[in-house]
């Protein structure tokens, strides 16, 4: 320890203890550190230093590989995202518009169904009027046969109705 450092150490101690005590403390530290200087510690083995350097190099390589893998992963995720986005846009663009003919066909089906309903209603009305005529005695001839005919017609109409 040089003289300047010794003086600085004494000044530092003076902040906590009196002048004489500070001088003694600085001297104790100086002498204690002198003992440490006189007894040098062993040096690390050359082989150990070489191993440490090799270990550091391996660690750095591993670190670089890891960061490269992470970068590649991030790029792959970004590429996949872009690809999905492009495919989605393309799909959206190529969705076929509904042809006008479809609507016409639906309308036709609806109308034909309506026609069938009208026929059915007309038949039921006819049966109803026949029944009323028979009840009021307007219908002459064999009453039993007439009733059977009407029943048959009614069953047939009913069957048509449930068939759609």
């Amino acid at each position, binding site marked *: 320890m040089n003289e300047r450092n010794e003086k600085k150490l004494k000044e*530092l101690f003076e902040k*906590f203890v009196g002048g004489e005590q500070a001088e003694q403390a600085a001297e104790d530290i100086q002498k204690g*550190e002198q003992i440490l200087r006189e007894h040098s510690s062993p040096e*690390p083995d050359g082989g*150990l230093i070489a191993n440490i*350097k090799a270990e550091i190099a391996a*660690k750095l390589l591993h670190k670089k590989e890891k960061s490269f893998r992470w970068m590649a992963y991030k790029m792959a995720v970004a590429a996949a995202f872009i690809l999905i986005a492009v495919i989605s846009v393309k799909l959206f663009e190529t969705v076929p518009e509904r042809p006008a003919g479809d609507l016409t066909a639906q309308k036709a089906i609806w109308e034909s169904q309506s026609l069938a309903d009208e026929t059915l209603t007309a038949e039921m009305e006819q049966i109803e009027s026949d029944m009323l005529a028979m009840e009021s005695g307007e219908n002459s001839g064999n009453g039993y046969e007439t009733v059977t005919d009407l029943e048959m017609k009614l069953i047939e109409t009913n069957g048509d109705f449930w068939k759609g």
Partner: protein
Amino acid sequence: MAKNNDLARIIGGCKSGDAESFSEVVDIYASRLYGYFYRLTGDREASDDLLSELFVKLVEKISSFKDGSFESWLFKIASNIFYDYLRGKQRQKKSFEVRKRQFESEVTEAKLSSNERIDKLQTQLGRIDTDTRELIMLRFYSQASFKEIAAMRSEPIGTTLSKLHRGLKKLRELMEC
């Protein structure tokens, strides 16, 4: 010892992952750090392991070094590694006193069992408590200022000064016996 500009360049190189810069750091600090570990453990094999562990940690942690004294930062890591090692050893023992005595005797036995020269200093250091011994070695090998050492140990500078003074005084007395 590397000049400040050189050290800044080397640290910059380490941060960018340059193996050569790390090699330079090893060349500059290995000897002092080895001395620090050896004086605390008294065991060459343990010191070898701790030194290797320190430099591997350095590679992992270099990006967290911002500014201030690199030596203080490096020795702070060394100090943490030493205390981790000590805790690992202590976990194997039952009571604190038994642990301490066994650890201290192991320090001496390790030296006695090998054919190394048994230096008196190492034996006497074993008679000083671990905390004070670590402080003495931190001060001696890191060459950090008292202010930096106090900051490293998270204690007031007055406490650091007082502990170091008592420790070195005791060491001197033991050496003179």
